[in-house]
Structures are given as structure tokens and as C-alpha cells.
């Protein structure tokens, strides 16, 4: 009997082993498949990321340089200071375009009639006039002298300079005609055309001329807007998070509030823009297009994000800390402010920074309150008209002039840089101060 049984078991066992070894192969295969799909997923994501980043970089790197043309400018006293006052303040009223026109005429003496000259005068940007004015005002001794000066070229010439293949295009497909192309080649042959650093990009606000447009205006606009957002959002969100998590009684009312906060986090951002239009502009009569209103709208949007992360990081602090504090005679308030909040600060800060970088990239709610606008003056306060980085990128993208293509990409690079910095700060804060329990 016994023997029979064991024989049977042996048989069963060998059968089982066989079964297992068969299924093992299958299970290994399925694990391999799983790994393969995982790697495939990550690989696709990485390829997309690289494609996007490299296409932005390739398109945008040109924006950091602009074209300059060297001309011999004669600082004619008759034009700059006809009354011979020698007072730099008087120089402001001179027509510096005439100096540039004379220099161009000297360089290309064959250009005689007015119509052809108009084609030539588009070579130099109108910003060059201001540069000459500055130069004359700062160096009075230059008046009456001739000097070779590098002048900013117009965006059209810049595009031609950056895309040499355009020379071989048909005349009607090119941005400039054949005569202009021959002038361009003459300048190039004489070494009077070169690339220089595009300082306007980092020191100007928006402009209709691509070579004069810059990102500083919208950078400051973003700064002021986020400042308002942070000042409003952080105290309110942390206070409500702490109250709800630590002090509030658990009842239907607080449950109701909690559900609402979680729902608010999922509301599309444009709704907050409508709210801002209805309340901040129409009821409170705050100025349109101002960073203060933008900041208030974005604060509404960011509040739930920070409240939720505050509560999550408070929850992560073990109850023993609170119990120990209370056991030693601390009040509930003391236990929270002295022990729980300091322990959960890294989590709260991380949440805040991530909420802020979300707000930095937001443009939809700002459309409603007039921050999607053409603004040339650099904002200096919370009530000045301003726009923000993502909006500036959108505005450049929708402009007809060719030179804005690379500015758009360069704007995206600036925005991405700020986002990467903010997110790395968040990661750093978390790793540096995080406590393991």
C-alpha cells in the first residue's frame, strides 16, 4: 500500500515538476515581454523628448545672434546739432536716419533713384538710429568725424544671412530681390557683415520688428505675476491645509470642503480666468492686463495643489511625534507649529514649487483678463500692463514676420530653463530635508 502510494506520489511529483518547468518557460517569456514593453514605452518617451528638445534648440539657437553691418558713418554736425549748441540734450531731436542713408549712399554709389534706394534702406534696423543717438550723446567729440560702426541689420537681412541656401531660391520665393541680394553679397565679400550677440533679446520687451523684440518684458511680467501668486497662495494654502488636517473636527461639513478642494484641483484653468474677469475686473475694477490680477487668478488655480500637498506631507509625519509633544504638555497648536510643520516643510515646499511652475506655464486663464496683449513697455510694478512668458511665445508664434520663428523657439528655451530650475529646486529640497521614519 505504502509503496504504491509513494510510487504514485513520485509519479505525481515528476508530473508536477514537468508542469512547472513547462510553465516556467512561459512565465519567463511573459516577464521578458513585460520588460520589453516597459523599455519600449520609456524609449518612445525619450525619443519624443529628444526630438522636441533638439528641434527647439536647432530652431532657437539662431535667435541669440543677430546680424550687424559695418558702415562708415559721418557724424555731420549739420544734422546732429544744426544750432551748434554742443548740448547732448539737443542731439535727441536730430534725424539719425539721414546719417545712415548717407552712409549707405556712399557705400553703394551706383544707387541713384529713390525707389531703388528704398530697397537699400531696409537693410538697417530702425534700432540703429537710437544707437547712433546714444553714441553721439555720450561722445561729443565724435561730432564732425567719420567712423566705421557696426549697425544692427534688419530682420529680413538677418534671415538671409542665417539661411545661405536662400540665395539659390527664385527671386519671388526669396524675402529680398536680386539687386538686394547682390548688395548683400557685396557687403559679405568686403567683410562688412557679421554675426554678433543679440543683446536686444534679453533686454527688450515685445516689438513688431523681430530684431528688436526681447523676452525681458514678459520675464518681468511672469516674475510679478508669480510674486502675487506666491504671496497670496502660500499662507492661505498652508493655513487651510494645517487647519483641515490637524485641527478641524471630522464631520460632514469638513468632508464637504475636502471634496470641493479635490474637485477644484481638477477644474480647467480657463474657468479661473472667467472668474477673474467677472470678479476682479468687473466687480473689483482692478486694471486689465495687470500682473496683480494675473497673480490673483493663478493663485486661485494653484491653491488646491498646495493645499493637497500640504495635507499629504502633514499626514506623513508619524502620530507619535504629536502624541509625544502633547504628552510633554504642549498644546495642540504648539505640537503642530513646533514639531509637525517643521517636519513636513520639505513636502510643503515641494508642492508649492511644483504649483508655481504650473502657474508659470499657464496662459489660458490670462487670456480672459487681457494679459495676452502686445506690450512694448517693460513693466515696473504690479499694476503696469504686462504679459508672461508662455503668452509671449504664443504671440510670436502667431506673427507673420519670418524672424519671429527663431524667437519663438528661443522663448521656449527660456521658459523651459526656468521650469527645469524650479523643478530641480523642488527635487533638491525634497532630497536634502526629507526625513525617513
Amino acid at each position, binding site marked *: 500500500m505504502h509503496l504504491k502510494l509513494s510510487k504514485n506520489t513520485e509519479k505525481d511529483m515528476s508530473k508536477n515538476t514537468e508542469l512547472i518547468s513547462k510553465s516556467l518557460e512561459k512565465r519567463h517569456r511573459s516577464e521578458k515581454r513585460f520588460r520589453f514593453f516597459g523599455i519600449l514605452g520609456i524609449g518612445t518617451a525619450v525619443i519624443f523628448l529628444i526630438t522636441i528638445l533638439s528641434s527647439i534648440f536647432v530652431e532657437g539657437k539662431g535667435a541669440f545672434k543677430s546680424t550687424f553691418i559695418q558702415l562708415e558713418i559721418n557724424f555731420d554736425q549739420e544734422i546732429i546739432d544744426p544750432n551748434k549748441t554742443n548740448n547732448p540734450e539737443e542731439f535727441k531731436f536730430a534725424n539719425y536716419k539721414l546719417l545712415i542713408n548717407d552712409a549707405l549712399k556712399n557705400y553703394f554709389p551706383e544707387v541713384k533713384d529713390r525707389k531703388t534706394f528704398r530697397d537699400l534702406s*531696409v537693410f538697417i534696423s530702425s534700432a540703429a538710429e537710437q544707437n547712433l543717438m546714444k553714441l553721439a550723446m555720450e561722445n561729443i567729440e565724435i561730432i564732425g568725424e567719420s567712423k566705421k560702426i557696426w549697425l544692427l541689420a534688419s530682420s529680413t537681412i538677418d534671415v538671409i544671412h542665417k539661411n545661405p541656401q536662400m540665395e539659390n531660391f527664385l527671386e519671388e520665393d526669396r524675402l529680398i530681390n536680386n539687386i538686394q541680394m547682390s548688395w548683400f553679397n557685396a557687403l559679405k565679400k568686403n567683410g562688412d557683415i557679421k554675426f554678433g550677440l543679440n543683446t536686444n533679446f534679453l533686454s527688450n520687451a515685445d516689438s513688431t520688428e523681430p530684431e528688436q523684440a526681447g523676452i525681458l518684458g514678459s520675464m518681468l511680467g511672469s516674475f510679478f505675476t508669480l510674486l502675487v501668486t506666491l504671496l497670496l497662495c502660500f499662507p492661505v494654502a498652508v493655513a487651510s491645509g494645517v487647519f483641515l488636517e490637524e485641527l478641524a473636527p471630522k464631520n460632514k461639513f469638513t468632508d464637504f470642503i475636502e471634496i470641493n478642494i479635490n474637485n477644484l484641483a481638477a477644474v480647467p484653468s480657463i474657468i479661473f480666468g472667467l472668474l477673474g474677469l467677472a470678479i476682479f475686473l468687473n466687480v*473689483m475694477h482692478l486694471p486689465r492686463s495687470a500682473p496683480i490680477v494675473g497673480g490673483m487668478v493663478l493663485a486661485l488655480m494653484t491653491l488646491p495643489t498646495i493645499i493637497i500637498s500640504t495635507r499629504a506631507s502633514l499626514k506623513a509625519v508619524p502620530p507619535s511625534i504629536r502624541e509625544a509633544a502633547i504628552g510633554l504638555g504642549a498644546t495642540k497648536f504648539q505640537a503642530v507649529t513646533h514639531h509637525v510643520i517643521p517636519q513636513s516643510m520639505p513636502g510643503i515646499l515641494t508642492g508649492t514649487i511644483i504649483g508655481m511652475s504650473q502657474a508659470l506655464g499657464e496662459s489660458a486663464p490670462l487670456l480672459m483678463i487681457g494679459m495676452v496683449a*502686445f506690450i512694448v513697455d517693460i513693466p515696473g510694478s504690479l499694476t503696469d500692463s504686462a504679459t508672461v512668458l508662455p503668452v509671449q511665445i504664443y504671440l510670436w508664434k*502667431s506673427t507673420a514676420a519670418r524672424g519671429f520663428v527663431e524667437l519663438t523657439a528661443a522663448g521656449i528655451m527660456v521658459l523651459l530653463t526656468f521650469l527645469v530650475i524650479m523643478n530641480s529646486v523642488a527635487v533638491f529640497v525634497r532630497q536634502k530635508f526629507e526625513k525617513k521614519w
Partner: protein
Amino acid sequence: MLVAAALTIGLSSQVSSRDQIKIVGSSTVYPFATVVAERFGKTSGFKTPVIESTGSGGGLKLFCAGLGTEHPDITNASRRIKMKEVKKCTKNGVTDITEIKVGFDGIAMANAKSAPMLELTLKDVYLALAKDVPADPEGNTVKPNPYKMWNEVNPALPAKPIVVIGPPPTSGTRDAFNELAIERGCKKFPGRKALKKSNKKLYKKQCRSVREDGPFVEAGENDNLIIEKLVADPNALGVFGYSFLDQNRDKVKAAKVDGVFPEFEAISSGKYPVSRSLFFYVKNAHASVIPGVKEYVREFTASKAIGNDGYLVPKGLIPLPEGERAKFEKDGKSLAKFDAKVLQKK
């Protein structure tokens, strides 16, 4: 909350006065208005005006919302103000406005450089894009638009699917396109023309509606996007303003409409059929309160800006005849009140 309260109190003093012009309105006028504003800011000593591109309809809505510094001073429009909007303005206290015409704009129909050139008539455009097309040759009855290929509309056209990318209904360009291209093509049918007299409402509905079954694609208020889509799809035809055509001649080429290319001379002489006027409207009550409004209007109407050799011409604006420009320059100087009666005559 304290911070918010403090900020709000600090603001209230600033809100009551504003020293910067606020402009809203058409995305077609936007590129011209921004150039004027930038020059104005650099040369006049006033702050540079802030310009929002909201579309003609959206701009007039904001403009007519009332008097006071929170409302814009000027709105740009790529079509004339409508009676409905004048009434809304009057209701909200905006009774005194000045109308300035700044120039013309042609609406081009263009496709990718690599695609064959199209020669369209307004009738072809109507038949290809209207929601309802005539069911009989006279156009007495209509049926839902059945055409999918260009050669079904007109045998002379290529056997390619109808794909037209154009602006959304909030755009002045779309309003003008519906009126100037679709409706005029519609009028070529005697039965449709007769309907205008007998039932104007139905006529407007049937002759100005664009089909919604696929061949007409709405692309949003971004003409650059339309150009990119055209380059990607050689079968597609795009609808956008002349200035965008002018800037992108290396990528797209225009179709002839009724035998005429959308070129500078043809648009300004009125030979090209799909062209319209560009306007802006000034709130006269604001002109004495907001510094710079009068000067801005003067800059925009000056010969150096919108005249034949003006600085807006290289940007794609098609100038008014000199006499008409001078009239609007005068209107701008005196802020001549706009008389809504001219709208009724039409």
C-alpha cells in the same frame, strides 16, 4: 488675505486714472496697430498703447461694454460695426464714437507651393463650401452640399478632394469671406437672388453658411498655423489675409479668383473680388480723459503711416485712395461722431 486687501486698497487710487491707451479687436488689424503703437510709443513721449487681439466681434463687445477706464479706448475691426453693436454701445452709454477706415485687405485663397495653381470663380467657391447648394441649375431649390471633389464643382478644376482651411466664425476674416466670397457666388444663381427679395432671412442663412461636414476645416485665429498646414498637405487650400500671403511667398501661392491674383494693385483698385476694408473705432468720451488717444489716432491716420508710401505698406496694408485717407485724417482730428444711419441705408 491681508496682503490682498492691502494691495487692493493701494490700487484703487491708480485705477481711477490710466495713462496708457488700451486697444482691443481684430487679429487682421493687430499687426498694423502694433507697428503704429510701437512708433507712437517711441516718438510721442506717451506710453506705448497695449493691444489685445480679440477678433473683431470680441473687440466690439468689450468696446461697447461701457465708459470708464476699465473699458478699452479703441477697438480694431476688419469689418464695419453692425447695427446690433451700435445699439449695444448706445445702451451702455457709449454714444459718441468715431469711425476710421485705415485701408484694405485682400482675403487670399492659397495652397502649397508644390501643388498645382488653382483658378477659381466665386461660383466655384460657393458650390464647394456652402452648406446648401442649388439643386437645380436656376437655384430655386437647395440640397445639402454633396460635392467632395473640385472637379464635381467645375470640370475644369483638378480631380482633388475639397479641403479648405480657414478662420473660425469669431474672426472678421471669416465674416468677410462668407459675405464676399460665398454670398457673391450664391448671387450668381438667379433663383437665389430672387430669394433675397422674397425671404431675406432665409437667403442670408442659406447664402452665408459654410458647410460643416468636413471639407471646411476651422483652424483658429492663427494664420501661421494655416500656412503650416498647407505646406504639410498639398491638397489643402487656405483662407487668410493678404499680409500673410506676402510674408510667406516661399511656402504658398495664391489662387486666381475670377481671373485675378490677390496682388497689391488688384486689391487696392477693387479688381480682386474678395477684399474688404479695415477700421478702428475710437471712444470719443475717452479721448479727453486718457492721454495720447488723439495723438495715436493722428499717428495712425497720417500719410507717413497709411499713405501710399507709408510705413504700414511694406507690412502688407493696402492703402486707401489719397482723398479718402485725407477725409479720415480730418475725421480723426475732429473726432467726428459716427452716424449709425449709414448702416441702415445698406
